[in-house]
């Protein structure tokens, strides 16, 4: 029973990441009709905002300490981060320790700006082009983005720990008399994802802006006829989608150390999630994200892998095939979207 609940938690946690990426991908597709292969790269850039923040906060003054030696036997350069010099050692260390949550503040404007530049500078020229062209150009962009990150940070994963206060495990089942120790940061991640998802839905549901965008998703031409400048709103929507992916990346960095290849790792998976959910359906994307996350978790249990060897290798794709064959447009897809 404990194991069962733990796997559900694992699934929700994986699902949160899938759902957040798929949400942004669906927003972009639904509003702009653009297939964005660079979306995984945005997630990766988000994570590297956290890495950069950590590096910036660790910028240091160097002092020679003659009592210690480095690996060549020369006197060691001892580094003291500037923040420790400025704010005192304990406050400085506290700030460095909290670099990941802090980088959320940085990530929002950065990702909005990246999204804005991407849409204005590149994506908008591809609205009327075939999906194949969109795929090629965004795939090219994804490669360029990841190679730039690689040039600066290398190919090796970079550890980006969560604040000490949010590390460690909590026993969620204490009051149920069960032992459900679960990493605190993963719980934080799940809550964070839930907040973002609800935020996006609320934004689309309850604001005029959101209503126009939803109308635009349903029928772009009509909204255009009403004299509403839908293009401008779509630019903003793209920027928002980019920052959703970016924030998902920032918060994911402490779970697995980010590397430059993350974008491609998540790209295929997130497309599967979006399509299983149904192209253009936001609730579908979220639902499929969590569903696939949970199924993936259960497929990796010993019980599953001994019943069907290798099931953990193929579960996502197997589920995708079954769902698409039984439900032609995914779980919650609408007719006529992306079928030409």
């Amino acid at each position, binding site marked *: 029973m404990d194991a069962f609940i733990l796997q559900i938690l694992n699934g929700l946690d994986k699902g949160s990441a899938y759902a957040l990426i798929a949400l942004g991908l669906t927003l972009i597709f639904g509003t702009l009709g653009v297939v964005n292969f660079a979306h995984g790269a945005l997630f990766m850039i988000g994570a590297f905002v956290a890495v950069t923040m950590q590096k910036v906060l660790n910028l240091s003054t160097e002092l020679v300490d003659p009592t210690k030696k480095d690996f060549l036997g020369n006197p060691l350069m001892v580094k003291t981060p500037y923040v420790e010099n400025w704010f005192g050692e304990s406050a400085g260390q506290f700030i460095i320790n909290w670099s990941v949550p802090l980088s959320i503040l940085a990530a929002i404007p950065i990702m909005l700006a990246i999204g804005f530049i991407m849409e204005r500078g590149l994506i908008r020229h591809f609205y009327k082009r075939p999906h194949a*062209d969109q*795929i090629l*150009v965004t795939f090219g962009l994804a490669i360029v983005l990841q190679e730039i990150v690689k040039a600066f940070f290398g190919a090796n994963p970079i550890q980006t720990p969560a604040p000490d206060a949010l590390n460690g495990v909590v026993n969620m089942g204490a009051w149920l008399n069960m032992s459900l120790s679960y990493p605190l940061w993963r719980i934080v991640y799940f809550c964070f994802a839930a907040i973002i998802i609800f935020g996006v839905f609320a934004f689309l549901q309850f604001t005029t802006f959101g209503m126009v965008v939803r109308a635009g998703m349903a029928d772009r031409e009509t909204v255009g006829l009403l004299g509403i400048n839908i293009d401008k709103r779509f630019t903003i929507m793209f920027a928002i989608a980019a920052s959703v992916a970016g924030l998902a990346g920032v918060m994911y960095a402490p779970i697995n150390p980010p590397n430059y290849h993350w974008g491609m790792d998540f790209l295929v998976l997130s497309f599967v999630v979006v399509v299983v959910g149904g192209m253009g359906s936001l609730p579908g994307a979220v639902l499929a994200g969590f569903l696939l996350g949970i199924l993936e978790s259960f497929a990796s249990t010993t019980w599953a892998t001994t019943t069907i060897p290798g099931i953990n290798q193929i579960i996502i794709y197997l589920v995708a095939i079954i769902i698409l064959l039984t439900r032609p447009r995914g779980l919650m897809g609408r007719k006529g979207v992306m079928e030409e």
Partner: protein
Amino acid sequence: MLKLDKKDTTLFLVVIAMTLLAPFIMNPFPTDSGLAQFNAGYPDLMQRFAIFGIFAIGFNILFGLTGYLSFGHAAFLGVGSYAAVWMFKLLSFNILPAIFLAVLVAAIFSLAIGFVCLRRSGIYFSILTLAFAQMSFAMAYSVLSNPSFNLTNGETGLQVYADDPQILKGSGPDATHLFGLEMRNTFTLDVGAWAFQFNLGFYICAMFLILAFYISLRIFRSPFGLILRAIKTNQTRLNFTGTNSRPYTLAAFVISGMYAGLAGGLMAAMDPLAGAERMQWTASGEVVLMTILGGAGTLLGPILGAGFIKYFENIFSKINDSVLQSWFSFMPDGLSDFFVSIVHPFVGKGWHLTLGLLFMLVVTFLPGGLVEGGQKIWSRLRNKDKDGGAKSTATTPAE
């Protein structure tokens, strides 16, 4: 004789000439010059040009004509390779049975997968093919290489071992061959400062490429090809015109799957090792990119796209700093360092970056791919002589 009209005959002859003369065309720079780095006229790369050309031509029959974007074609190439290597292991190193089985197995595989996937269209079709291919990859990489049932030899790749049965080998050669003529036979011709390599394996691939191109040309010009193009344009109308589009798309899918199998079989014939990663989604994505980059739906585009990407992969990735320094060594020190540092990020380990940038540039400025770029240049050249040359390209969309 070839049942081609005049224009197509010219095109076909040009392709034949380009293919057969590739050892010269790919080797424009003297061997000892600094620019020899850019020569591509060595057997392995020329074979790859031809093989991936075949792969992309086949993919184009599906994607370029019907518009069905498969993200799983590498799986057919992979099973083709495995089938071929198994023939080497069981029979002998003769490539003919291997290539035959590769095409056959790929056909069966693509018939099964196509039958299921073609129940959906658009991106749903793409994701279904992707899912099948990724499953095949995962199975080949690990599950099907377990010691008790080793079909693929997993990570290492399937290869021929000394203790394999090879029942027809007899005293035949220990390398892939065609009735005794080994694929690795290379004849080098020195002309002045140039060294041109003529490799038997390449010419085998070239013959298949020419054949593949010819078949694709015929398909493009056939009633079948016309209906495939109609499927891309308007499937509703086609169905209300009394045509059942499903068997047409399935036929196109299987044909392109067989092309992929042929490419896979040839890869194994040139180098008898089949690695699982040639089935991965990135490999499927690569052929999509080749086709779009060259010009989807055009006859020459896929070959150009394949050559372009393989060239970058094999030539640009080998340019390292010491090569750069030798290029710029004629400059004063500071200046040469400056140029080296400018070029450095784009070559060697940065070849991906260059490729990504080129994808973006080509698709932004040449929506029809490299072929359109070529047409633009051609028509501009002709317009210098006389006006109105551009019009003719517009009326021949399948060129």
